[in-house]
């Protein structure tokens, strides 16, 4: 029965694979929402503690499910199911197949990672869904989408690299999360690991000041897919923190404190900037940033005082997905029911323009600081580029042609020619002969 755990990621992926074929796509596209059903079934039917070992997978992995996670899985499943239902006929139009495939790939990954019991598997699922989400962000193909996609990709790769470094640093082959937590209690590697995990997932969670991709992405994705971004931020970023950090096992006061500071900053930033936004999507984006701040604040607290952990899981596992769910529902309604949307729009647009103008500049502020730096960076990379890619090869080519010309040059040819014909003259040849005979006789003496 535990084999069914595998269906949570596999069913969506297999379906995605199947959709590549035309006939499957035509006949079975109604199945797309159903791909989320195994997750719901697993969370509802399976007893806590069900697990399944997959020693052949990656470095040896296992899937499993426990009480608080069950709820999380159920809610996330619901989000994916809901979005699929809302998109509905959107899977059938011209670019629908692509959309469906990326959607299913992302779904399999992000539902699967909830069940992962070790960092490798988690990382694997997270990457798959992360790259699939890139496809979703780009789906509309507008300039805005491309820009958002680019930035998202940079962030994604950076985050993955950091997490990869964690796995590398772990200096262990295989093992589950406890191995990682063990390593985080070791004072030598602790700070590095915790820092990498924090930053690596902060990128995904859209925590201030690493949130820069989020507003763009929220603006770029199709309306119906917006909840998926939320699900990504919380289902991967935040869940990553929860899984990867040794919450409740060890006290890391410095880290805890800094996290709380960042959390507050993120919260404030998200709220303040969010309020100033005109477009509802952007508001949603900044609210997600604020929420991420809230979560990290809570976790910072746990890291500072490990004994406060026992009451936390419920809070985290419950609050986070409920928020996501709630916002999803809100959003679905907004999508589906146009009066509501009108109302929202009118409310949002009604705010005074003056306040807008002041506040709208806020997100630009960090960028303004960065700008000279970026310019310098540009300058230097350009320099390096011209030197390494243009100047050096040119010089080399010049050198080679010079050599080549020398080789073919008439004087070189003439030297060889004239020497050879000199050797061919009888007087020269005979003197060589005599000299040689004499030399051998004399030298032998």
């Amino acid at each position, binding site marked *: 029965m535990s084999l069914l755990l595998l269906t949570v990621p596999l069913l969506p992926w297999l379906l995605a694979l199947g959709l590549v074929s035309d006939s499957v796509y035509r006949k079975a596209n109604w199945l797309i929402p159903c791909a989320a059903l195994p997750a719901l079934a697993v969370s509802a039917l399976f007893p806590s503690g069900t697990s399944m070992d997959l020693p052949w997978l990656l470095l040896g992995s296992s899937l499993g499910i426990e009480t608080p996670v069950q709820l999380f899985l159920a809610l996330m499943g619901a989000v994916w199911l809901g979005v699929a239902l809302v998109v509905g006929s959107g899977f059938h139009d011209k670019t629908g197949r692509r959309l469906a495939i990326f959607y299913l790939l992302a779904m399999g990954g992000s539902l699967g990672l909830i069940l992962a019991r070790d960092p490798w598997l988690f990382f694997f699922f997270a990457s798959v869904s992360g790259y699939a989400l890139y496809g979703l962000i780009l789906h509309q193909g507008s300039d805005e989408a491309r820009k958002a996609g680019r930035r998202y990709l940079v962030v994604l790769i950076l985050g993955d690299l950091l997490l990869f470094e964690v796995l590398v640093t772990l200096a262990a082959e295989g093992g589950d999360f406890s191995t990682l937590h063990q390593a985080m209690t070791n004072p030598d590697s602790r700070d590095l690991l915790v820092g990498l995990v924090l930053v690596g997932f902060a990128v995904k969670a859209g925590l201030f000041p690493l949130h820069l991709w989020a507003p763009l992405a929220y603006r770029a994705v199709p309306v119906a897919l917006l909840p998926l971004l939320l699900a990504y931020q919380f289902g991967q970023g935040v869940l990553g923190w929860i899984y990867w950090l040794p919450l409740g096992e060890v006290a890391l006061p410095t880290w805890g404190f800094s996290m709380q500071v960042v959390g507050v900053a993120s919260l404030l930033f998200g709220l303040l900037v969010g309020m100033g936004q005109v477009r509802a999507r952007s508001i949603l984006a900044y609210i997600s940033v604020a929420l991420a701040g809230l979560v990290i604040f809570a976790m910072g607290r746990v890291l500072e005082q490990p004994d406060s952990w026992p009451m936390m899981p419920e809070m985290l596992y419950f609050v986070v997905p409920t928020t996501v769910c709630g916002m999803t529902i809100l959003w679905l309604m907004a999508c589906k029911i146009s009066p509501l949307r009108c109302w929202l729009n009118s409310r949002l647009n009604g705010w005074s323009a003056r306040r807008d103008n002041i506040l709208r500049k806020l997100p630009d502020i960090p960028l303004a600081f960065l700008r000279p730096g970026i310019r310098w960076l540009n300058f230097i990379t350009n320099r390096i580029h011209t030197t390494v890619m243009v100047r050096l090869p040119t010089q080399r080519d010049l050198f080679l042609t010079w050599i080549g010309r020398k080789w073919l040059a008439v004087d070189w040819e003439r030297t060889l020619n004239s020497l050879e014909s000199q050797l061919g003259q009888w007087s020269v040849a005979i003197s*060589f002969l005599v000299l040689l005979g004499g030399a051998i006789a004399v030298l032998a003496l």
Partner: protein
Amino acid sequence: MGISTVSIPWAIWTILLPLAGSLLCFLLPRRAALLGQAAAFSIVVPVAGLGWQVATHGIQRYAVGGWGAPLGIDLYADGLSSLMLIMTALVGLGISLYASAYFERRKAQFFWPLWLFLWAVLNALFLSGDIFNLYVTLELLGLAAVALVALAGGADALTGAMRYLLVSLLGSLCYLLGVALLYHAFGTLDIISLGRLMMPMPAVWTAMGLMTAGLLLKTALFPLHFWLPPAHASAPAPVSAILSALVVKASFYLLLRLWLDLFPEPGAAPRLLLGVLGAGAILWGSLQALRQKRLKLLVAYSTVAQLGYLFLAFPLLISAAWNAVVYFVLSHALAKSAMFLAVGNILYFGGHDRIDELDRIVQRLPLTMTAFAIAGISIIGLPPSGGFVAKWLLLEAAFSSGQWGWVLVVISGSLLAAAYVFKVIGFAFTQAKVLHETRAVPTIMEWTALGLALAALALGLMAPLPLELMDIGAPWVTLIGEELP
């Protein structure tokens, strides 16, 4: 030295058979090609018999006509000479097959008697045990070779032949002077008796200088190689193959015999001199080859370069180095004859041998080009080929005697050889701007070239066999232990 008497004097037959063939061809010019081929095939039997005798019973010695050493003609066969005979037989067979299709009847009636005569003289040279007989064979060899070069007709060939004749006579003259000096001093001509009587004295050194210089001229060691490229390039293809593969080897063989069997151990200086000249030959010959625009000249200069390797053994003077040099002789004979025959095919096919107008020869004469490429591999010294084994042994000797310079010379020689061989192969793939009339090449000519090239390749896969054979009674075996410090 275990000299055994075996019932059949194979050695004599190796000389008599080609001589008889030559006479028959001369007397029956209409049947020359057929008779010549029959003779070529029949020579294989005594050569194989002699090889077997030497391999199983050690050194063989025959007194022709029943007279002994000081007066009569002695034939002397050890591992080295029987290996040379085998090499000559192999190459000779290939060339005979090739020539049967190559020459039209008018030329054939001159070619076959001369060629079989040359073959007989070569065999006699490899089997002679006294220095005067060696002189006679050397002189006859030169004359036969000159006549063969002149066979092509035309101004180029005649100029080349004339120059070759003068060189040949000059070289033989030097050699004869040395023989006279030695006879005057010791009163015998037999190599082995002379070797026993030999003592360091000015006459000996003078003789040595004269004989060596003469032989170097005939071996075309740089800087005395001037006559070789025109002669080899202007001759008909089978003749070029004979000259490059066999004739120059004969004078080198003689040199080897003299330095190892006859003369007392000379100091390091003359050996170094020969080595330096060899190195010069390798570099100079390869550079000249690289520069050539005509294929046949390229191959001829490649011979100049390859001959240089043979002299690298002198400064090394370790038995491995001698093995290497003999191996060089074998593999070069096979590879170079294959190469000349392949070039002959190309010339026959397109009527020209300009390298940059080879024009997709790869597709149009695939067998010939394969032969050229395989022979090239052996010339470059890439594995698996005879050239590689030889180069390996030479490098090993250079390393074990700690003489680094020669390693560099050998390697740069290989690289230059690769450059000129692949220059040809590269142009064989591309389309030329100028188109030439072509005529079909007889299949047998393509296959003989390929066969010889494959033999050169096989030499790289069965090295232990010839290496064992050449050590039987070899002069350098006694030298082990006298290696350079």
